[in-house]
């Protein structure tokens, strides 16, 4: 019945791709995807988990006087593991999406921590490319 109705209705057939596209859009409206789309719209290249991993462990000396810092200084080498705040020793829950589904569900929070932590670690804000790469890496873990 359905099949026949489909064939008999050119209007419905014509709408099918539209409905499909709409469904995809709804699915991608997850906070993480919205963030990544936002970065892309600001001119970032396609994101790479591999570049994200390299950035995660990159050692940087933001000032001449400080010891080299990286994301791993506080979060640990393995993003699925628990981290420790470098100065206060406070426990930091895992960053990897698989170990901590809470991560990247609040875009405001993500941006706040990027603002704070990029400045401390690299001595400058992160680019949209770096943010997208890191998020792609951490959400793939």
């Amino acid at each position, binding site marked *: 019945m359905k099949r026949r109705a489909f064939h008999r209705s050119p209007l419905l057939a014509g709408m099918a791709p539209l409905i499909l596209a709409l469904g995809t859009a709804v699915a991608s409206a997850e906070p993480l995807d919205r963030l990544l789309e936002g970065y892309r719209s600001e001119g970032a290249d396609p994101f790479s988990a591999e570049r994200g991993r390299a950035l995660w462990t990159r050692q940087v000396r933001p000032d001449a006087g400080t010891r080299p810092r990286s994301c791993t200084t506080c979060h640990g080498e393995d993003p699925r593991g628990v981290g420790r*705040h470098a*100065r206060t020793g*406070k426990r930091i829950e895992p960053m990897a999406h698989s170990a901590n589904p809470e991560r990247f569900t609040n875009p*405001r929070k993500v941006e706040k921590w990027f603002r*704070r932590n990029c400045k*401390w670690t690299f001595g400058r804000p992160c680019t949209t490319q770096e943010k997208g790469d890191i998020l792609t890496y951490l959400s793939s873990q």
Partner: protein
Amino acid sequence: MQDHTVRVWDEPLRLFHWTLVASFTAAWLWQGDRWLHLHLLAGWIFLALLLFRMVWGFTGTRYARFSAFTCGWREAWLWLREVTQGGGPRRLGHNPAGAWAIFAIFFLGLLLAVTGIVTQGGEERHGPLAGLFGFATGAGSHLLHEALAWGLLALLLLHVAGVVVESLQHRENLALAMITGRKRAVPAGLALDVPRRRGVAMLLAVALLLFILFWLRGSLAGGDDPFLPFVGPELPHDAAWQEECGGCHLAYHPSLLPAASWQRLLREQEHHFGEDLALDPDTVRRLQRYAVGHAAETTPTEASWKILHSIPAGTSPLRITETPYWRRKHREIEEAVFRSRQVNGRFNCDACHLDADAGSFEDGAMRLSRAAGLDDERSGERA
């Protein structure tokens, strides 16, 4: 000799006497914040015993009754003069000087108990008078409490000296008499034994034991954390504060620093101990509102009041650990302890303070054994 003794002190009186000695000694030894719950246990027993003795002064046996030894100061003075001249007439019950000592001990003892309860209500915000007095009253009462304790100690020493003198003059061990209840009857046959009143003594003993068990019920149940028989009011909390501050460190309760400090801290949020907090203006406003509204000036706790009053006027310290009160309170803790892995720095209050998150910093909510190399003895420091 045994034939010539007579029972003078009934059993409840003797039990009262020695438990009063024990409770005063215990309260004296358990001074300081760490032992506050035991100090209070001893204090309540002390007060209860005094009240019991008041009732017994009217309902007890012959020599226990106030009417048996109440006398004017002139009589006491004359009696003391006779003592200095080699000894007055021997008495079976309390002598006039002893009677005055008893009433003085009563008076000071009751004042001692009352000032103790006022101190607890004012400084700790718990006990029957919690919240009725401010910290200034509590602190004043604390001073008075200590002065009274010294005064009472002096009085007790005087009492002991009197007992020694009279024991020597009349060749009779009066302290032993307070244990056995018996004194020499001279001439024999003139005085009669007072009744034992063992039932009342048993009742008193059972009541004391039950009270002690009730007080220590949590400690006896065991468990890792210290038992707090009483706690002060719960402090207000804010979700944003918990989230923003607690992300990196203990979310220090705003009552631990004055409002000016919090305003400065949030104004300078781009240079927060070497970090840029990158908080958005809305969040900063919300945090400011909460911090200022619950800053040290609102004095919800003993710690907040003492921190506030230790800070020199016109200054707004950014570190709680910089305030004179904090420094004084932690001066005996060695640097190595703060550096130990378990503590990891002065700012980690919760390494030792179990209620650091709640911000109440109750005296008893301590677990010093959590920290490396720090034994419980060190916390015996006075408030």
